[in-house]
């Protein structure tokens, strides 16, 4: 009786999702496996033989990996500092980190267009200081894309890390120190291992986010293609929906592989959360 109420309450949402999301996704995936009425893997084989596509795929993965590593590197000290602060200052800093997160990706990518453009702030500054003699091209390069993505996803990593660091009691660090550990050793042996769950969540968010981001690469990456832009072009510019469907399926597969792999790694690294 009670259970049937539960299912009944979920029914509208369930129908909505199944009808508008699950079925379209399933049909998209299945359409890539059928050619002339027969099951066929040819579409994928062709894709993975295509040097151009492999390059895009590899490029996307590389950009996502660099973005994730940079986010980790920058976030760790910042998150550790914020997590140790007292309430008021902490609230303000978390707020300042969340603000960009809730601001449109277009706005944030656009700001980097102003900074990195040929007549942008960076070039003006470098020319003015005579560090360079001619404007350098940063905008529309992978570097610009990585800068934009790091800027886009940094708050996610900071917030994920603060989440775990807040739960690491000062007592643990003090216990380690009272047992003879230096501050650095206490961080390395106690704080860092305990951060791994947050690090994994943050890394999944950043890596998958970078992997599938559209706006930032489209605005800052120029002709440097990533997989999401490639999907869009196939679907909307080239009108090749079969190719777009294959790319879509590959993207879903990669996303779930990455999430699964990272969760596995987390369990290996941290046997007793």
């Amino acid at each position: 009786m009670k259970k049937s109420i539960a299912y009944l309450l979920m029914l509208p949402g369930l129908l909505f999702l199944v009808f508008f999301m699950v079925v379209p996704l399933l049909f998209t995936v299945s359409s890539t496996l059928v050619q002339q009425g027969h099951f066929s893997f040819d579409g994928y084989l062709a894709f993975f033989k295509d040097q151009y596509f492999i390059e895009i795929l590899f490029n996307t993965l590389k950009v996502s990996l660099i973005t994730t590593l940079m986010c980790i590197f920058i976030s760790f000290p910042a998150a550790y500092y914020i997590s140790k602060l007292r309430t008021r200052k902490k609230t303000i800093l978390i707020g300042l980190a969340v603000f960009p997160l809730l601001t449109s990706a277009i706005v944030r990518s656009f700001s980097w267009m102003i900074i990195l453009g040929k007549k942008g702030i960076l070039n003006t500054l470098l020319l003015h200081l005579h560090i360079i003699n001619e404007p350098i091209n940063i905008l529309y390069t992978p570097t610009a894309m990585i800068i934009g993505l790091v800027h886009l996803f940094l708050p996610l990593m900071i917030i994920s890390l603060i989440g775990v660091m807040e739960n690491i009691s000062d007592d643990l660090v003090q216990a380690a120190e009272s047992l003879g550990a230096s501050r650095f050793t206490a961080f390395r042996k106690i704080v860092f291992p305990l951060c791994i769950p947050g690090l994994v969540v943050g890394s999944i968010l950043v890596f998958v986010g970078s992997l599938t981001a559209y706006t930032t690469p489209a605005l800052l990456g120029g002709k440097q293609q990533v997989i999401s832009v490639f999907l869009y072009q196939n679907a909307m510019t080239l009108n090749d929906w079969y190719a777009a469907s294959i790319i879509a399926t590959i993207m879903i597969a990669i996303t779930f592989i990455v999430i699964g792999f990272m969760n596995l790694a987390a369990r290996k690294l941290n046997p007793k959360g």
Partner: protein
Amino acid sequence: MSLLSLNNVSVAYDKNVILKDFNLNVEKGELLSLLGPSGCGKTTTLRLIAGFLQASGGQFIFDGKDYSQVPINKRHFGFVFQNYALFPHLSIFENVAFGLRQRKVDRKEIEKRVKHMLEVVSLSGFEKRFPAELSGGQRQRVAIARALVIKPDLLLFDEPLSNLDANLRVTMRVEIRRIQQELGITTVYVSHDQEECFSISDKVAILNKGVIEQLDQPKTIYKYPKTEFVARFIGFNNFIQCRQREEHETHLTFFTEQEKFEVQKNAGTTSTRALKLAIRPDNIVIEKCRTGSGGTPGHRDNTLTGQVKISTFLGRSYQYEVDTSLGTFQVNREMEMPFSTGDRVILIFPKEKLVLVD
């Protein structure tokens, strides 16, 4: 010379002064408890000794050396935390071995000492478990083992039993005392539970608002509290403020406006000019007024007449609140012949049960 001395130490958080010109001496091998209500500065004192916080003034001498600037990790003190602070990602073995690894102790030696220490706290066989798999009492013992295995020069306990249930608390405090005496480690123990402190300590310091009100052996404090605060804290709920005193050979006589109280001389009366008397509710004798209602009885020393205001059944005894000319008194009496609200009674204050407090 004392092993540990805090000389005129001051600590302040922001603008809150917790300790001001605080002094404390701990002798080698003894277990000294800091006892007091929350906010009295006992935990601050302990954390100061551990090095978790810095004094804004004063001196901390340990074993003849100034320790004020020695960093936490060079102090070689064992600290047992209220919430145990076990490292959740490390096994019990690794938790206990942590301090030894910092000291670069040889691998075989670590194994031997950790094993031995786990035996001491009766946790052999738990080496591979993780903190989350242990009960509160077991975690507590791991915390103690972790602090002891480094053979610390000083052992510090911050309310170590407050998260355990009542039965376990009693078992564990016996255990702590046993281990402490076996190893002869000088120990500072913080608690707000007086029974706990009195039962395990060589000496108890009772703190109030950052000041030590009394530092004595538990028995002495229990019998002869020196100040009103200490008296209240250990259950002397009744006070009589006097105006004058006279000294005689075997006793002292105190006068209020109309009443007269004799107090037998004892260890607590020698060095004080105090005018305040204190007595436990258990020690006041309560009797029915014999002269009937209204009239004043033939007056004797050390007695007061009054009227029962509230009578509460406590199980083993009754507790009465009695209104008298000197205020309300709390009196406990065994079950037989209970009084009821409104009864006229006589309170008798035995001269050997009255103590003097500042």
